[in-house]
Each structure stands twice: as C-alpha cells, then as structure tokens.
C-alpha cells in the first residue's frame, strides 16, 4: 500500500513537529515528508486538509480478556475499539485465564493477533507462576515468545523475598518489571479511597499508604538490585511524590496514570454509581490535581486507557460487589485532548503522553523492539487521522468495545478519530 496524505497538519511530539505538510508512506514506513519521493505513485491519496495526522497512540494497559474471559470481550471486539480510538500499539497485562505465565500462551496470543493483522500487541508476561506471588516464571522463555516485560497485574506479591528474587532474576537478563504499587494488606477488601467520602457512603477504604508503602518497598529493593521498574497506575499525590524523588535520585523508573484518575475523583461516585468502581480507587481532588501536574511536567511518562471490559452483570450490583474496571480504548485520545484544553497544556506535550512517552517506556523495557511512537522518515507508518475540533458523545451506540461501562458515558468529548493506519495500511475509517 502506497499512501499519500495531502495537506495534513502533522503533529509528531517525538520530532517536536506541528505543521501543515504532505506525507508519503510505502512499504509500511514513512517514505517522505514535505517532498514527494521520486516516481511515487500512490495507491490511495487522502486529502486531510484541516485534520491532524499524528503517530498512532501507544496504550500501556488494555485488558483484552483473551484467553479466558471471552464473554466479556474478545481480541476482535477490543482491537476494533482500539483502532477506533486511534491506538496502534497495545500493552496487554498478564491477568488472563490462565495467566500469561507460559510461552505457549503468549505465542498463541501473538498468533491470534497476527492473524487479525491490525494493532500491534505487546504482552506482559506473568512475573510469578499463576500470578500467585510464589514462584518466578521462565522470564527468558517468555521474552523469546514475545513478552516485553513482567507484571503481576492487580495481584501484588506479598512475600517481599519473592519480589526481591524476581527483581534479581529480571535484572540478570535486563528485563523490566511493570508493577502496580499496592500493599495487599492495607488494600484488602477496600473498594473506595479512604477518606470522608468513603466513610459517608459506608464503603471500606483503601488508604493512600497502601500505595506509598508499596512504592517505598519497591524503590528500596530497586536501589539494591538496580532493575528497571515501570510503575503502573499511580493514583495518589503521595505516591507521585515518591516517584518524583526516585527519578530525581536516578533510579531507572517510569510510570503511567489512567485516564480515569486524570479526570475523576471519589466524590464522582455519587450515589454508588458502579461505573466509578475502579482499581485503584479514585482519590481526592488534591490527588487528581497532582497527577495532572505530574503528567504535564513529564514525571508521569504516559497516560493509559487502563481498558478493563466488564459486562452488565458485573456492574449491576451493589457498589462493593460490582466488578472494578471501565472501558477506555476509545476515550484515550479524547481525554488526553480534554486534559490539554482544561489545563492549557501545549498540545505537543499532551499528545506526547499517549505517543512518544509510552513508546519510550516500551523501548526501555524491550530495547530490541523496533522503535515506535513517532512519524519521521523511516518510522513505521503507524498513524491516525484526527479531527481535533469535532466533539462526540460517549454512548452505548458510539462505543465498539464489548463493554460500554465507563464513567464518561453521556459526556461530550473533544477530538474524533477519522482513520487509523498500521504499517502504512488504513485499518479503520470512521463511517462518515
């Protein structure tokens, strides 16, 4: 496929580019910008005047629920949702059923994704067998099968010695651990952030210390071992401050925050709206402001969808019994833009947190992987075409994910994805 994008406003945070130009793509890569390559005959010419062409989004966490939970979502349904959201690269956590703790499972998943030939997927392997926190997995074999790092999803290791050994083993091979900071004892049975709102609702709380204590443990062990860490889903001001210190100290640390935590707080739960039942739980306004500031300043490397499809049965329950999670693939770009507009963050910086930033996290975690997240000449032609000025309403009709449960249901959001391309081939176009 030879593609010519005419009159595009090219926004590429990796190259600090924001200007109107033409782009030519061939052989799955960006062939040229500004000047047509010699003897280029396009198979397709798209005039995108007034629209933005940017690198495809890189999402650091999306549960696609396959294998094991196909009644909630399948690779097909969720990859379609990703494409509709302008996402071209997805990192998958290992908490499938069975968890991704054996090379065969990873190979099968990669094979399924290859067959679909759409969005690039990057699985994280389970750090411990069955995510049980007892025995470390065959990390080298799992890496050969395609894993880009190792994680425990939302099942933190409570045995600190196992954690230390996993770090030592990962460090031996240069692997990165992607861990959620969560003290399992303090977080146990909690469903909302500890504080006045949870107390009023009579919901068991998760104190901020469950995050900060876990971070202290992780960083203290990291100082001894030197392993690379990616901190997943920071949720509190206190947690963010510790990450900032660790980075300032020079520890090899990156981190991300979810779209939900960048936009919402615990009082949004209202009268027990289970759309707001999330893990980690939503915290206070001070936390949200700190997270948005950290994102703007780059302490937080990436904004992620934390896409977690939950079916209707899982949400139509009393709050504490409801399943945690929200759909997010189709909201990631819009919520990045919304944040930029609200906080007057330069667009290049805001879009960097969903392209260049997460791509850098991936590159640090899997150095052998070809670089993604930019659109310079020679880069993989993974891109999306976006109407930044268009608004759309999040509703059950507009979402393609098998799960339509999101706190943003009914809201009007900026930025509409018009088309998504992977390796120079348009894989998704909006209906109009």
């Amino acid at each position, binding site marked *: 496929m030879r593609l010519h994008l005419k009159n595009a406003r090219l926004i590429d945070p990796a190259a600090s580019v924001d200007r109107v130009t033409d782009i030519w793509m061939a052989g799955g890569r960006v062939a040229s910008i500004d000047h047509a390559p010699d003897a280029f005959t396009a198979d397709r010419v798209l005039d995108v005047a007034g629209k933005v062409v940017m690198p495809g989004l890189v999402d650091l966490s999306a549960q696609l629920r396959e294998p094991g939970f196909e009644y909630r979502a399948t690779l097909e349904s969720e990859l379609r949702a990703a494409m509709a959201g302008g996402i071209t690269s997805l990192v998958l956590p290992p908490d499938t059923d069975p968890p991704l703790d054996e090379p065969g499972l990873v190979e099968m998943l990669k094979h399924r994704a290859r067959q679909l030939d759409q969005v690039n997927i990057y699985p994280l392997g389970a750090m411990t067998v069955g995510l049980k926190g007892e025995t470390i997995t065959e990390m080298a074999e799992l890496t050969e099968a395609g894993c880009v790092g190792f994680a425990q999803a939302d099942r933190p290791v409570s045995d600190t010695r196992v954690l230390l050994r996993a770090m030592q083993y990962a460090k031996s091979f240069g692997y990165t651990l992607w861990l959620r900071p969560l003290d399992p004892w303090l977080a146990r049975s909690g469903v909302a952030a*500890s504080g006045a709102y949870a*107390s009023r*609702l*009579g919901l068991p*709380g998760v104190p901020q210390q469950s995050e900060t204590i876990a971070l202290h443990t992780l960083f203290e062990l990291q100082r001894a071992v030197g392993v690379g860490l990616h901190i997943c889903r920071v949720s509190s001001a206190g947690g963010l401050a510790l990450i900032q210190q660790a980075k300032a100290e020079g520890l090899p640390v990156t981190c991300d925050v979810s779209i939900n935590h960048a936009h919402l707080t615990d009082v949004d739960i209202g009268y027990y709206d289970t759309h707001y039942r999330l893990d980690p739980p939503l915290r206070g306004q001070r936390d949200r402001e700190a997270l948005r500031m950290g994102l703007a300043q780059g302490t937080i490397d990436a904004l992620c969808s934390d896409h977690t499809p939950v079916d209707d049965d899982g949400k*139509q329950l*009393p709050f504490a019994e409801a399943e945690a999670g929200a759909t997010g693939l189709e909201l990631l770009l819009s919520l990045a833009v919304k944040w930029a507009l609200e906080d007057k963050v330069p667009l290049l910086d805001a879009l960097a947190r969903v392209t260049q930033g997460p791509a850098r996290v991936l590159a640090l975690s899997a150095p052998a992987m070809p670089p993604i997240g930019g659109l310079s000449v020679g880069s993989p032609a993974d891109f999306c075409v976006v109407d930044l000025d268009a608004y759309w309403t999040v509703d059950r009709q507009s979402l393609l994910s098998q799960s339509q449960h999101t706190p943003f249901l009914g809201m009007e959001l900026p930025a509409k994805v018009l088309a998504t391309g992977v390796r120079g081939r348009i894989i998704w176009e909006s209906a109009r």
Partner: protein
Amino acid sequence: MRNPQLNKHGELTHLISTEGLSRDILQHILDTAQTFVPLAERDVKKVPLLRGKSVFNLFFENSTRTRTTFEIAATRLSADVFNLNINVSSAAKGETLLDTIANLSAMQADIFVVRHESSGAPYLIARHVSPDVHVINAGDGRHAHPTQALLDMYTIRHFKKSFSNLTVAIVGDVLHSRVARSNIHALTTLGVAEVRAIAPLTLLPSGLAEMGVKTYTDMAQGLKDVDVIIMLRLQNERMRGALLPSSHEYFKHFGLTQEKLAYAKPDALVMHPGPMNRGVEIESAVADGPQSVILNQVTFGIAVRMAVMSIVAGASS
C-alpha cells in the same frame, strides 16, 4: 444530581438515608409519628391509611427485630405484609438482586422494606423499581439505617423538646455502624450544638470531622456534660482482625457504667439501638437505670415507621 429519595416535586418517595434530607422533611416525619403514638394505647390499633397496599419485607440480612417492627407498623396501617427471608431463598440459589426485585415487582408490591449487607444496595433497587413503588431502607451495610435514626430523633425530641442546645455523644463501633452515620446526619440537620464520637481509633472512620463530628478516645472527656448518649452495638467478630484485643478491655475503657455515666449531665439520656450486649458495651445497671430510654425507643420506633410508610406512599409518582 437530584437526591434519588425525592421525586420531582421534592417529596419523599423513598427513605434511604437521612443524609441530604431537609430539616422540614425530618420534622414532618417526626410530627406525623407523633400522631401515631397514641394509637398504641387504643383498643383498635389500626388506621386504614395503607389499606389494599402490599408491603414486602426483603431482608437479605437476618434481623427478626427490625423486620417485626416494620411488620407491626405496616399492619397497623392496614397494609398487607409479606416477609421474604431472601437470605435463605433466591439469593442463596444465585439469583441476582435485580432479578429478585423484578420478580417481586411483578407481584405488584407498593413498598419494599429492604435490609442488605452491601452499602448502597437500596439506591440500586430504587433506581430499578417503577415510579409508583417505594423503597424504605431498613439498614444497608455500613451506610445507613434511617428509620433507626429517626426514632432516635423522635426519642430525643420527646424527652428534650428541642435539639438546638444539645450535645450528643455516639459511643462505640462507629466504623461499622450504619446507625451512627444516619444519626450523625440527622442530628446535624436538626441543628444540635455538638455531635461527638467516642471510641478507640480502630473503630473510628476517617473523615468524621468533615461530617461535623468531634472525636474522642477517652470516655471521661467525651462524655463530659453531654445531654444524650447513643451507645452502639459491638459485634463479636470485631474481636478478630486486630480491631480490639478483648471485650474485657473494651468494656473497661468504653463500656457505659454508672461511674462513666456520671461524666454526663445528670439528666442525660441513655440510648441503644439494640440488641444490647450487656457487659460489653453497657452495664445492666445503666441499661435498666432511670436515665435509660431504650424501651421508649422501641415503642416510638413503630410510630416512626408508620409515619415513614404513610408519607412515602402518599408521594405522587
């Protein structure tokens, strides 16, 4: 967001929590209850206000006493009462809460009286019943027990006449107590001078200050010059899980004895939502003593529940 307990005319159509209800609505419930109190003294204890209406008692969590008071209240209003002990029927067979509600709605219920172990469950039910069906919360998780709070308010008003100069202490397991939360909201709405909570820190939730409550960990200070003492029930399972070391030590420091009662004003009321654990949170000499109004609470409870049922049933759909 509109308070889901109110209809579009601002009338009480469900009673789920005392939080967010106006002083007028609370006073109206207490005034209505007052008209029902003399009924208990009459030979014929019935009025025909809810004749032909069906009241379903849905207790997902067992409680014979609370269920019985609702049953008596509904019967005195001439309603037909159906008791469903969901704990041992459909829920145990795996039916979801909303399926249970849909099934019972199809039996033309007018009022659901619901007790559920999960905080917020009555809101979920209220969202899914048709507009002419009313939900009364008989206790949900740690969240609310509004009829208990209202009967407590009735009792306080009965003996103290006014709320404005009162200091009220709530003693015990506030962390797990829906009674405490509902009382705190009702007391602050009705304008008492001060609400206190007294317990070891393991039993006090965070954020009480934001709810207008002063916290104490010492009975001598906390009970000093209070007008009303509301004792909370301490459940045995709190002795596990590192909340309390023993009931013995708890009683020694937080149990209400005559000696500790002396810190309060001489005419202080002693209240308890029942069932009491004598020798754990309260000693018998106090529970049965002259300042105790615990049995009055039970009597007023029926009138208050009659008032709530008749008011929500009268709200336009």
